[in-house]
């Protein structure tokens, strides 16, 4: 068990190093620091200004290790900064990136955490219901509605909801954020609703397949043969044994809650990490984008290790070796 954990962690570290190498190739060799400087300062600036800007942002070293510069190069710097969470200053407006991320995580979580729990709370009962009525019209209707819901672009959900609530119903403010817990619910209502709507089609369809797969197993037939009620079969046999495939999806989603939601946050004016990322994209801010990709993959690798370990807890048949 311990050996497995250690091996798993080492592999995870390897993947993180691979991600960092990929990011280096993308952000330092495909676009050179000179390109980045020109994007930040404008096309027509004297070379001296560009050199000054590169020095200020720590981009003035040679790219690759060479004689006399084994540690004084961008590749080494890139790894050192990322691994020590010293992300430096934004290319676009010189604010410290760590500070921004710290401020953005709170608002992001106030959106994504309730969204995650509510989505699960809606999708799992619904898909259990659909799976319970398998091969009837209710099931077929459920599948058709899921496919319909999946086929609508999330942009349309957002635009539609903002239009409906903002112009016709006037129930909630259509955008904005407040740290006061009483007001926050009013601001979050609409993004939560849109988030659930946009995800529910795919979720129900996925969970339904998982439940159906489990319903066709031998022990479910045995339970039915000995006179176990259908409701009880669903709750005790099918649902509990479906936990493993569910767990993979659920645990892997948790790390990304910290990343916020790109679309929901920027549309609904929530100052979280998603909105920060969108600002970075629109302002050509490579340093922030790079950092967000890195943090995202760090969280993903962590989530994956936790998932693998949790199999052993949920399913006694799984031995981690």
């Amino acid at each position, binding site marked *: 068990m311990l050996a497995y954990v250690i091996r798993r962690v080492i*592999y995870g570290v*390897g*993947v*993180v190093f*691979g*991600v960092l190498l*990929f*990011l280096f190739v*993308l*952000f330092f060799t*495909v*676009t050179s620091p000179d390109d980045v400087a020109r994007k930040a300062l404008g096309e027509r600036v004297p070379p001296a200004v560009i050199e000054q800007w590169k020095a200020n942002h720590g981009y003035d070293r040679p790219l690759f290790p060479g004689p006399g510069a084994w540690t004084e190069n961008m590749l080494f710097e890139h790894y050192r900064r990322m691994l020590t969470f010293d992300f430096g200053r934004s290319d676009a407006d010189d604010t410290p990136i760590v500070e921004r991320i710290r401020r953005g995580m709170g608002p992001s979580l106030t959106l994504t955490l309730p969204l995650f729990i509510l989505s699960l709370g809606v999708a799992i009962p619904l898909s259990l219901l659909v799976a319970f009525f398998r091969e009837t019209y209710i099931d077929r209707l459920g599948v058709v509605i899921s*496919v*319909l819901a*999946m*086929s*609508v*672009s*999330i*942009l*349309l959900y957002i*635009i539609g909801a*903002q*239009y409906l609530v903002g*112009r016709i119903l006037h129930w909630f403010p259509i955008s904005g954020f407040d740290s006061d817990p009483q007001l926050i619910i009013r601001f979050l209502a609409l993004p939560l609703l849109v988030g659930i709507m946009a995800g529910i089609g795919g979720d129900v369809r*996925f969970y339904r*397949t998982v439940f159906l797969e489990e319903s066709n197993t031998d022990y479910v037939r045995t339970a039915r043969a000995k006179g176990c009620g259908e409701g009880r079969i669903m709750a005790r046999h099918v649902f509990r044994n479906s936990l493993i495939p569910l767990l993979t999806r659920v645990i892997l989603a948790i790390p*990304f809650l910290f*990343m916020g939601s*790109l*679309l929901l946050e920027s549309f609904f004016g929530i100052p979280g990490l998603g909105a920060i*990322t*969108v600002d970075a*994209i*629109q302002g*050509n801010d*490579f340093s922030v*984008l*790079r950092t*967000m*990709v890195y943090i*995202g*993959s760090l969280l*993903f*690798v962590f989530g*994956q290790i936790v998932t693998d370990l949790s199999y052993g807890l949920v399913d006694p048949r799984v031995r981690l070796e």
Partner: protein
Amino acid sequence: MESHILSNSVVAILVAGACGLVLAARRSRMWSAAFAEIWSRRRLALCVIGGYVLIALLDSVAWVGGLEGGQDAVARHQAQSVIDRLFADFQERSYSAPLADTEFYGGAPLRHPGQHLLGTDLIGRDVLYLSLKGARVALLIGGLTSLFAIPLALLFGVPAGYFGGRLDDVVFFVMSTLASMPGLLLLIALIMVLGKSTLAICFALAVTGWVGFCRVSRGETLKLRELEYVSAARALGVSQGRILLRHILPNLMHLVIITFVLMFSGLVLSEAILSWLGIGVDGSWGQMIDQARNELSRDPVVWWNVAAAGGALFGLILAVNFVGDALRDTLDPRTVREAE
């Protein structure tokens, strides 16, 4: 080479390729039975997809000249597609509602009263025309990206599964590295670095999209490698390359088709999100939706732009999703789901 000649020859190649595929599929009992079943189950959805493909092809066949008169002198010297020609000289000056006789704001009379089925946009372009042109962009995004991603996935996945060992370790490591980066962010980062051309966007979509299929093809090859007929081929002294090409690859074809269809709708929806972030493909439905966002806050509301683009997008994705489901049920109910 001029772009319209390139686009015409691509159409010719596509049509020829499609005919060849149909002939090849008809000769094989398995494929013709599978397609007959899908046709009987999803006739409407297949017809809808066929309609979109037809519009896209009509928009790709272009030639210069043949246009007389009209306001737009520039257009007469550029290559115009069949769709362009149908809507030649159909411009208004500003917004007009569907089938309206006057401009939406101000009420000045239109040049073509009552003829714009879906109205016109801010600078007076016919919305039906723009929506039809979007079909080509959407199919290009889905098709071109799959053209990058599927061969790439097979190129790495099949040898990794077949030979195993070091090669497998390396491919698996690359896959886990790419898969661990958040998809949308990686996509955006690639596009910002590579530029915003259609080709760069499709390439970026392919880089983020090939991993899933690579994993499926690797897993399936692992299974096929152990089957008797492969061992028999090996015992008879068939070369490795020939085993891969003749005995492994044809048995992955059903997965290629399923993946292509399932990937397609995701790609087109991703492009809509990219458009909203300002890095989409020109002329896509995503861009129309993006441009139409502010129109909903006007008073009175300009709704036909977003409705037309959204409807066109929804129709295509829905049809593709329905066909994809049927394909998966018919060709392979098990393998693809495992990879999700």
